[in-house]
């Protein structure tokens, strides 16, 4: 406890020191040496770029086999989620109850939700196994009795599993984001079951983890089955995730949900984010092997050599081509930037609105070693008129980087893209090489919602 307290005090002291030295910038672009921690830019009005490949709550909800999403909100909020479902050709797994102005003030909101959801379930040709019921900001503000709503619905429809889900972005600056809440909610239907000591889960990802990752090869070589919601064929297989003895979260926004699930079902938990540091990857693999009896630690020196070789090959190919990277491509933006700069790549600019708390060490390294690296906001109002017509070839890593850099050479990936560990670094290098050598239709690709989902546009 003392260590924790001292550790926290030390962190706060460190943060205060940084704050004293640097203030968030009013401008949309600054050199890294002037970037304040953890928010380099003064919050203000927010612009939303046309790059939409990251997943939203609708895409995520569709991962739960047999689920049906019901949203209770006004038309403007409804439209974004309805058309997300329609664009991914999943309109038949989506319904809504529309809130009108009078519903905000007539004290009948609970009845509206209950009767609306009941009506939808009666009208559906087949009742779903799971109902993901999304309430929104206004329910929170009016003090809507959600417990009463869920109790009533569960008693009316005992065969259905109702999961409380939230589209309440007004709460996200002071607490969990709707994204984090949903990555928790998606596993609430899992019941307590006897544990299978040869089965583990990967929790909260949007993309299946590559089979070639060390994480999967180590587990499979030792006879473990790896379950992941992204790969479940049906509801029964999803339910079998309850039998796993270990949950692994690789995506930062999934950590909360994986922890909650582990506590609730008495499972072990590991947080193994996609790292760009060899030492951290080694530590992750060691912790994984330690939790899985019979698993064997691979020869990491060989894996490291392979990474170095591919990094060198990639550098030789792209030469001094200017590179831009954005924060949607991998959770550890600064780690990736550091890796590339330390291997001689000409990273010119990164696009992010905040730095991850996990990347303090990389932040300090970049401050010292890449003071002129440009940090560019993505939501700052000035980004609406940011020049997007470069006079030279730019290689972008990520959709927003591609859009803002005005380039057709880009790595089209979001949220880590299922990459992990040494294999992830090598695979990312391959994608960089491919992006350098071939053009993509940026306008057609980045505007599509939910990269990897079916897109009907």
């Amino acid at each position: 406890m003392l260590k924790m307290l001292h550790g926290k005090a030390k962190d706060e002291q460190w943060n205060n020191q940084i704050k004293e030295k640097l203030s968030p910038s009013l401008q949309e672009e600054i050199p890294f040496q002037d970037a304040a921690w953890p928010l380099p830019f003064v919050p203000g009005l927010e612009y939303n770029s046309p790059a939409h490949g990251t997943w939203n709550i609708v895409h995520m909800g569709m991962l739960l086999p047999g689920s049906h999403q019901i949203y209770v909100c006004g038309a403007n909020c409804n439209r974004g989620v309805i058309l997300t479902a329609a664009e991914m050709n999943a309109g038949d797994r989506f319904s809504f109850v529309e809130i009108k102005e009078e519903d905000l003030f007539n004290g009948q909101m609970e009845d509206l939700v209950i009767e609306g959801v009941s009506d939808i379930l009666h009208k559906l040709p087949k009742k779903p196994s799971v109902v993901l019921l999304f309430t929104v900001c206004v329910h929170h503000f009016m003090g809507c009795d959600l417990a009463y709503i869920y109790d009533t619905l569960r008693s009316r429809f005992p065969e259905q599993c109702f999961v409380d889900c939230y589209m309440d972005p007004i709460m996200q600056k002071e607490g969990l984001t709707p994204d984090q809440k949903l990555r928790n909610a998606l596993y609430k239907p899992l019941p307590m079951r006897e544990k299978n000591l040869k089965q583990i889960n990967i929790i909260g990802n949007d993309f299946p983890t590559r089979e070639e990752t060390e994480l999967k090869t180590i587990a499979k070589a030792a006879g473990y089955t790896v379950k992941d919601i992204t790969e479940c064929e049906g509801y029964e297989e999803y339910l079998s995730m309850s039998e796993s003895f270990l949950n692994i979260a690789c995506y930062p926004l999934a950590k909360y949900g994986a922890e909650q699930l582990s506590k609730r079902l008495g499972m072990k938990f590991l947080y193994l984010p996609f790292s760009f540091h060899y030492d951290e990857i080694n530590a992750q693999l060691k912790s994984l092997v330690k939790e899985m009896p019979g698993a064997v630690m691979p020869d990491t020196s060989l894996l490291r050599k392979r990474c170095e070789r591919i990094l060198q090959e990639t550098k030789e190919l792209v030469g001094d081509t200017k590179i831009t990277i954005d924060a949607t491509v991998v959770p550890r933006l600064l780690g990736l930037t550091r890796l590339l700069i330390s291997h001689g790549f000409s990273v010119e600019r990164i696009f992010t609105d905040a730095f991850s708390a996990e990347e303090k060490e990389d932040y300090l390294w970049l401050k010292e070693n890449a003071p002129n690296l440009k940090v560019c906001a993505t939501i700052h109002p000035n980004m609406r008129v940011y020049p997007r017509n470069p006079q030279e070839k730019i290689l972008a890593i990520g959709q927003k980087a591609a859009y803002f850099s005005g380039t057709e050479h880009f790595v089209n990936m979001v949220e880590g893209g299922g990459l992990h560990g040494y294999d992830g670094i090598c695979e990312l290098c391959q994608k960089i090489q491919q992006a350098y050598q071939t053009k993509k239709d940026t306008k057609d690709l980045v505007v599509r919602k939910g990269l990897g989902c079916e897109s009907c546009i």
Partner: protein
Amino acid sequence: MKQVSVTLSTYTADVSGVCSALYELGGMVVIHDPSGCNSTYNTHDEPRWYDMDSLVFISGLSQMDAIMGNDDKFINDIVRAAKELKPCFIALVRTPIPLMTGTDFEGIARVIEKQTQIPVFYFPTSGMQSYVSGAGMALETVARELVLPTNANGHFKENGIEIENVSNELSVAYTKKKNQQKLNQSEQKQIENTESKQSNSKIKINILGATPLDFSVNSTLDSIKEFLSKHFEIISTFAMGSSIEDIQKAGEADVNLVISSVGFPAAKVLEERFSTPYVIGTPVKGFAGIIAEKLIDAAWTGKSQAAYFSVTSSGKSISRATNGIYIIGESVISQSLKAAMALKQGIDATVICPLETEPEYIGENVLLFSSEEEIKAAIAEAKTVIADPIYKTICADETNFIALPHEAFSGRIYRKEIPNLMEWVTI
């Protein structure tokens, strides 16, 4: 249950409607919202977002600021951005949470206007009405606040009344508020119209109600303009493809053409300010000629009218036997299609309008249903349904479904299939 939708989409809401209507006018639109409104708008409601920069932002309202009434952040953020980006005007757009908390937008608008010296307009949207309401109130404000009094021989006039101290600035629109004298408006306009016809060859018109929500970004609007420009001089189009300078001159028109419900409130304002009559109707294939006739008629008589009314009451024989044909969509466009079908084939289709509309331009055989339940029941035995493809999910298998994608309903999903209405033949 009327507020329930099992399979259908919902129409673009009022918030996006405001943004869409003001998109090309050089202003800065700020939606007072936590998150999501801007993404929904630019993804599903705004086909110009990628290629045409326009200043549309959200405030990023947080729970704490909403509860504590911290309007200072909202004001300061807008003032800072406005000083940097220098918009022609600022539009404040309301969403559900500020509606619930009773945010004083009018007071906020005055503070921002004082600090920036830029006109600020507030739109009391709720996020719960359709784009017809939002875009309608936006274009109404454009007509009221941005259109200059007419300039004749160096004298600025509004309803024939000379306005003093007018400079060629946006703020000139405000000076009209000082000129509230009454005059026999229609009489004055008739005189001006007559003088105009005597001295000029072409009748001047404005096209009101053009947004991508109803007309997408295909060739429809260009075709409409091409057709109309053969007969008329187009002063401005509210609000696609016209500069703010064009819009400012809208008061010079002899007659206005309302091509969608969105343009109706602006037409009323221009009638009030300049006594300009209006004609309601969309120039679609088979009906455009009637509209041209009605525009000329209105310019001469000064009388406003819905062009499609003349078709249904023109004595043409309409075969009741072909009934069972339904058109679902926006009121003016759907009734124009109905008129075209009546003219060409003698078919009396039924229009189902799920959006806000006004009694003034609703003709016979128009059903005002907005819920999935009502619409599904109405078309249960339909022979033919003409509607956005998403409506097909509630049609009977044996119904002949003719897809007419509508950006304000299905967004960008069927954008490539949206037809040019000046070339499209229904059935």
